[in-house]
Each structure stands twice: as structure tokens, then as C-alpha cells.
């Protein structure tokens, strides 16, 4: 199932490039639109970029290159995209992982609290809070955070990357809505499990409500929660773009945005392919995690 998805996305990424209205040759030779282009020079560049080949050939060439990590050069800076990505990737990954950690910790915590205090004041308050978290745009929250923690309280650095503290605000920006979604999903999953018979039986053994929820219902609800979190990691990577732009983090999201504005379509393609790759990797990681949390799959593996 993964291979066709990856193939489809790569075609899409490639087609997006084809659909681009800008002429890359012109963009290279005439970036500010003032020069008169020599036809011969134009043809040479066109040839060099392989733009004369039929489209499927271009696709295969491009894909072959992409698979070997040759993502081409940026039209504008003429820098190797591969090197740029390698330089920028750690920032984005660090940010995404931090956002993910926040999502897991607070999402699960809020979700468990809501499920255990179902229909009580804690549940109501947290349900409102999580709905609010879903409704706050990350970029606006980022500005509020800067206003409060940088301008008023002078607690955190605005931009630049000086260790952990500089990731706090971007991390919150990235994670805010996923925490909300995760908490609500955790709540429903646990409540679903609490309605099942094995939970009643666990209570009949004399286990208290907290232990029943944590040891039994929560452990079972981890199965749907993990699926969700895996899907969201790729989403967080996408959402990190906004945080990168606001907090001046030189990650790939920032790279993609500036490429988008200058129609640097090799870079955008590389970005799209990269996110697809993350999706695929995360799907595999989830499959591995299932082995840990879902004994049914583990048992199936042993027999098969």
C-alpha cells in the first residue's frame, strides 16, 4: 500500500512542477526581468535542465535522481538542494520532535483526565480548553507568546537558536492544535474502552477506578491513539513552516516558503517529496509500534 502512495505523491510533485506557470530558464537568465536573453544561451540552459525531453522521460530522470538523493540545484541560489536540505533538516526535525513530545505528553494527560472525570467540572473545563486550542491559529499564538514572554517578561529569546529555551515557543506554536485533537481523541478512545466488558470484569476483581482506567482502558486505547499520532507527525512537519517563519528558524519549511515565493520549483518538489517520505517512514514506525502495543499483531507475526 505504501509504494503506490509514494509513487502517486512523486507524480503529483512532478506534475506540480510542470504546472508551474513560470519559465525556469527565463528565471535563471533573467531573474529581475531586465535582461534581453540571447536565444542560443536560452537553448543551452534549456538543454542543461533537460527541459526538451518528453514529460515521462523528464519524470523518470527526475525520479531516478530524487531516489539517489540528487534533488538538483536551486534555480536561484544555484546551490545543491541536497546540501541545503541536509543543513536545514536537523532544525525542522528537532522542532517537530519537540512539538510531538508536547502533543504526546499534554494530549494524553488531558485526555486521561477528561475520561476519568467524565462529565465533571474538570472534564468540562478541559473540553473547553481543548476546543479553544483547536481554534487558535498557531501564528497568532506565536505573536501572543512573544508579546508576553519576550516583550513583557523577558523570559525567552525571540529568535535565534540558543539551546532548548529557543525551541519552547516554536514548539508550542507547532503543537497547540494537535494537543487539542490528541486530547479529545484520547478521551473518546478511553471512554469507548471503558464501556467494554473486560473493564467491568477488571472492576469486579476489586481494582479501583484509576487502576482500571490506566492499566486496562488506557492501554487498549493506545492502539487507535498511536495511529492518529503517526498520521500527525507528518502534519506537524507541515505545520512547523509557520513556526519556522515567525521565529526565523532555518528549517526546511522556511526554505520551502521562500522557494515558493520565487517559483523555485525543484526546491518545492524536493520539499513535497520529503514530506511524503516522512509519511512513509512514520507509517512503518507505527507498524513497528503496533508490534509493541498490540499483542494480536505480535502473535500473528509469530505464527505467520
Amino acid at each position: 500500500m505504501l509504494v503506490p502512495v509514494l509513487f502517486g505523491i512523486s507524480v503529483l510533485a512532478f506534475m506540480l512542477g510542470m504546472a508551474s506557470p513560470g519559465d525556469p530558464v527565463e528565471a535563471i537568465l533573467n531573474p529581475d526581468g531586465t535582461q534581453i536573453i540571447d536565444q542560443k544561451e536560452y537553448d543551452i540552459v534549456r538543454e542543461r535542465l533537460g527541459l526538451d525531453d518528453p514529460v515521462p522521460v523528464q519524470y523518470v530522470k527526475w525520479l531516478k535522481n530524487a531516489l539517489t538523493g540528487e534533488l538538483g540545484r536551486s534555480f536561484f541560489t544555484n546551490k545543491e538542494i541536497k546540501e541545503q536540505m541536509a543543513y536545514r533538516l536537523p532544525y525542522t526535525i528537532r522542532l517537530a520532535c519537540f512539538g510531538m513530545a508536547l502533543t504526546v505528553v499534554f494530549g494524553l494527560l488531558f485526555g486521561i483526565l477528561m475520561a476519568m472525570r467524565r462529565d465533571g467540572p474538570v472534564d468540562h473545563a478541559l473540553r473547553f480548553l481543548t476546543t479553544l486550542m483547536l481554534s487558535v491559529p498557531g501564528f497568532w499564538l506565536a505573536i501572543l507568546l512573544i508579546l508576553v514572554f519576550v516583550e513583557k517578561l523577558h523570559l525567552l529569546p525571540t529568535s535565534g537558536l540558543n539551546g532548548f529555551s529557543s525551541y519552547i515557543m516554536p514548539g508550542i506554536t507547532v503543537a497547540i492544535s494537535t494537543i487539542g485533537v490528541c486530547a479529545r481523541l484520547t478521551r473518546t478512545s478511553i471512554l469507548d474502552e471503558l464501556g467494554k466488558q473486560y473493564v467491568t470484569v477488571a472492576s469486579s476483581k476489586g481494582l479501583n477506578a484509576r487502576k482500571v482506567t490506566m492499566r486496562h482502558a488506557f492501554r487498549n486505547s493506545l492502539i487507535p491513539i498511536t495511529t492518529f499520532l503517526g498520521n500527525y507527525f507528518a502534519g506537524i512537519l507541515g505545520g512547523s513552516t509557520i513556526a519556522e517563519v515567525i521565529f526565523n528558524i532555518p528549517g526546511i519549511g522556511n526554505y520551502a516558503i521562500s522557494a515558493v515565493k520565487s517559483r523555485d520549483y525543484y526546491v518545492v518538489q524536493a520539499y513535497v517529496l520529503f514530506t511524503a517520505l516522512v509519511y512513509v517512514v512514520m507509517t512503518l514506525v507505527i507498524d513497528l509500534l503496533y508490534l509493541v502495543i498490540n499483542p494480536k499483531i505480535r502473535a500473528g507475526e509469530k505464527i505467520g
Partner: protein
Amino acid sequence: MGKKKKTGIIAACILLAVILLMSILAPVLAPYDPNQIDMKNPLAMSSAKHLLGTDNIGRDVLSRVMYGGRQSILLALAATGLSMALGCLIGMAAGYFGGAADLLITSVSNVFQGLPGMTMMIAIAGLMGAGVKSMLLALVLTSWVGFSRLVRGEVMKLKQELFIEGLKGMGAGNFRILFMHIAPNLLSSITIIFATRIAGSIMSVAALSFLGLGLQPPTPDWSVMINDARSYYRTNPLLAVAPGVCIVCLSLSINIIADWLRDRFDVRRDSVNE
């Protein structure tokens, strides 16, 4: 429980109504032209003349806030409506005809699901040029799958329940069965996702416009205003705070209403309450 929920949903409806009225009536209510520049009076703090102050080129912030939802609300509605239409048609086709059509549609939607929405939107909006048209396309492309998945599943279920073979035997055509017998049964679940997606679309429109990929300055739009304010909000925080509060109120009220709809009409959730 019931009472608290009721006050919540009523408050959300009122809030939504206020924001919608403010946006619709902006030309009547706004004290100034939202694009009227007054270079003699930039970055004014709030005063009787300008309740929320002015921005860096002296435009009245209150008037801009009043106008600021018009475009994005319309865009979000249009995007969600189009994805609903597209998704429902595709989903109905997949669920009803099954077989090869279903396989093809399912694989295509898998591809669309593989790409995180934000990435897709950045790619499309950027490559086709930043602007309203490409934003709309990007939003539709990323959200039709949600509708088609649901509709496909429901149609497959209904096909069994409605004794389609019997209807066919009575001479009903595929078209008639789909639109007369199946479509009415989908209404409640489509309404629920529509409400949820609208809130999502508003957030996406806001994010894209903020990144400069959607609505462009000098459009009086909440996200554009927040982006414009990035260099000036230290002087007048209201420049960034006021439009943000509007976005939050709008999507919060819609989210609360969507939740309420889901609690009320989603049969699946009922089992939790038993």
C-alpha cells in the same frame, strides 16, 4: 450536564451570529474606509476617534477588523462547499458502483491522504502563484477526501439496507437511486463533517494568508493584518491582538457547534453513553 451544554451552545451561536453580522454589516457599521490611509496619524493608540488605534500607515484598525472576516469566511465556505460537492460525488460513485471505480478512487484518495494538508497547500498555492484561486484549489484538493471517505462508507452500508436490487427491479435507474434514495440518508453525517471542515478551512485560510500565500495586502483581512502587524505590534499590540481574537471567536464558535452536532446526531458516539 444538559443545562451546561445548552448554555455553551447558545453562547456559541450568539458569538457566531455577532461575528457574521459584524462582517455582513461592515460597510454600514465601520466608522472609516478600511483602506483609507492617513500618513499623519500612524500607529495611534486607541482613542475616541480610533477605538482600536491605527496601523503603520494610519488605517483605522476597528474598520479593518470589521471588514477582515468577509473574504476569509466566504473563501472558507466556498472551499468547504466545493470539497463537499466533489467529495460526495466521488464517494457516492465509489461506494455505489464498487469494483474498479472504487479501487481507483480509493487509491487516489490514499495518495491525497499521504500528503499533509499544509504541505500540499504550500506546494499548490506557491507553484500556481500566491493568490485566492490557488488557495481555493489547494483547500479543495486537501479536504475532499474527508467527505468522499465518509460518503463511500455510508453508501456501501445503505446499499445493503435499502435493497437496491429491489429498487432496480422496480425500474429505478442508478441516478434516481443515488439521489432520491441514498443522498437524503447522508444528510446528517455530511452536515457534521461540513461543520467541522468549515472550522478547519477557516484556520487554513488564515494560515495561508498569513504566510502570504492566500489573500494579499492591502485586503482588509484578519490574517493579513496580523502579518502586517509583525513589525509594529510592539508599539500597538492591538494591531495583532484584535484580528486574532476575531479568528479565535469565529472558529471556536463553529467548533463548539460542530461538537454539539456530532454529540447529537452521531449514532456511533451514542454507544459510549449507554
